[in-house]
């Protein structure tokens, strides 16, 4: 069995009295694409925030290649090899596409010339080559998402956390994006992917984890998950569950 890239053990986070993430545990193998799905408000983005160091957990461990990340600040987590994109894109609006990605590339290439070269390489890979000098603010949403991914990749991550990259894309764009994600995986990056566009995530993921109300309710191949009555219930309500059980 391939070694674990990421392991969550009993991860919990509460806000006041509300338990946003509850005793969450799962493993992500190296080189896999793992889908993370669940109804709105299930706590998916909170999980990302916990893993990436933006929020401290109330309990539990986050192990990257066996080493605990809990307590590290976000930039340290990034240095260890986890990169993330945001649900609402956050480019550096006042800077150009090249500058955006170069900033991230500086993590591995302290000299400007090399950082820019690496940035240019990734920008071309993401299909943004002719917009390389554009201000990030002037890009279309799709291109901003591409920029966000290019920037994340520039930090040379082992694990990439994608937060709803398909949001707002049309069918063609979704297909293109799916190819891109497979491409990134082929380059050796492990991916955890939160998504609502189920078609894309089911076709591409090796494994899917389903969360509801902060708890894991399913963990298996896309096929297994789709047929899981708990999952159906979570998405559609109790009536559908009893219906499926007939």
């Amino acid at each position: 069995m391939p070694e674990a890239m990421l392991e969550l053990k009993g991860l919990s986070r509460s806000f006041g009295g509300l338990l946003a993430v509850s005793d969450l545990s799962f493993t992500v193998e190296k080189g896999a694409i793992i889908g993370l799905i669940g109804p709105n408000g299930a706590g998916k983005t909170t999980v990302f925030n916990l893993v990436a160091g933006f929020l401290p957990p109330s309990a539990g461990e986050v192990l990257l290649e066996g080493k605990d990340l809990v307590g590290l600040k976000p930039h340290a987590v990034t240095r260890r090899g986890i990169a993330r994109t945001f649900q609402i894109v956050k480019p550096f609006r006042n800077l150009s596409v090249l500058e955006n990605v170069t900033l991230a590339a500086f993590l591995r290439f302290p000299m400007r010339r090399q950082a820019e070269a690496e940035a240019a390489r990734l920008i071309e890979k993401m299909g943004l080559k002719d917009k390389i000098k554009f201000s990030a603010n002037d890009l279309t949403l799709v291109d901003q998402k591409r920029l966000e991914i290019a920037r994340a990749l520039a930090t040379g991550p082992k694990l990439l956390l994608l937060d709803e990259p398909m949001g707002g894309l049309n069918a063609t764009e979704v297909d293109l994006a799916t190819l891109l994600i497979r491409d990134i995986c082929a380059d050796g990056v492990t991916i955890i992917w939160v998504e609502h566009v189920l078609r894309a995530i089911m076709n591409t993921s090796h494994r899917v984890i389903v969360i509801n109300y902060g708890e894991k309710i399913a963990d298996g191949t896309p096929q297994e998950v789709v047929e899981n009555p708990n999952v159906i219930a979570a998405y559609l309500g109790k009536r559908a569950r009893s219906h499926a059980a007939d």
Partner: protein
Amino acid sequence: MRFILILVALAALLAAPWVITDPFYVHLMIMVLMWTLLGASWNVLGGFAGQVSFGHSAFLGVGAYATMILYLNLGLSPWYGIVIGGLAAAAIALPIGLVCFRLRGPYFALSTLAVAEIIRLVALNWESLTNGPVGLLITTLPPVTFAGVPVDWESKTPFYYIIAVLAVGSLGSVAMLAHSRLGAYLLAVRDDIDTAEAIGINTAQVRVSALALSAFLAGVGGGFYAMYLRYVDPDAVFSIALSVEMVFIAVVGGLTTVIGPLIGAVFLVTLGETFRSHFLTGHLIFYGLFMMVAIRYMPEGIWGRLRLIFRNRSGVRNA
């Protein structure tokens, strides 16, 4: 092309005191250069890093007092004193940063104001060190020779060259900063501090570095100020007015640009000093007026706007 322009400018700078001998104009040039230095120092923190500080006079003052005290009490030559003044300013910047960087945006700005005021009051009252409200006075500067010729401290010319070197040096270091990784990181922190963290930038370290450099330059400026005016007192040197002037010069000139402070200083200081010589007071009125105009119509400053015009015309990136 740009290299040639810089050489020409430097040559003009060197030659100026030979050509222009009217003491008022020499004084004006000295002031412009000094404020360029101070504006550039503020710009490192406020422009590039986006952390607007209203308390920079604290660093100026510390540099000024350090230089003065070292000279008067220990006889340390001001040329070393100015550098040590800068280092002293950078040193106090660290605890200040520790306290103030927990805040953001306008709150950070107000907190720096508070800190500067506290330092002013401390300086006012710690008489054994600073002589309190009476201030410190230098009557004679150390005898120095330069290239075999004894320096005449009564004339303004030596001061001109000193500040010219300091100002050019500061602009040069800012230019190097802008091109470096740290400079890029500063712009990221300015734009969106959380996203910057997400791509691996240690924002705390970056901000502190900017603050230290900024404080150092301001402290050096303060040291020069002390030597040129030969007198410091807490209300003059730690005043809100000085902090505010630094801000205005940088903003009107152009944040996040290297040359901005120079343009801002040329513009504002010239107007201000000329006005002051005729009307004796109220010269900061232009600062206020131009700040309002700038924020309303040209938030990127004079030089920033010029750069945009160049960029749109030629489609090529400039400095």
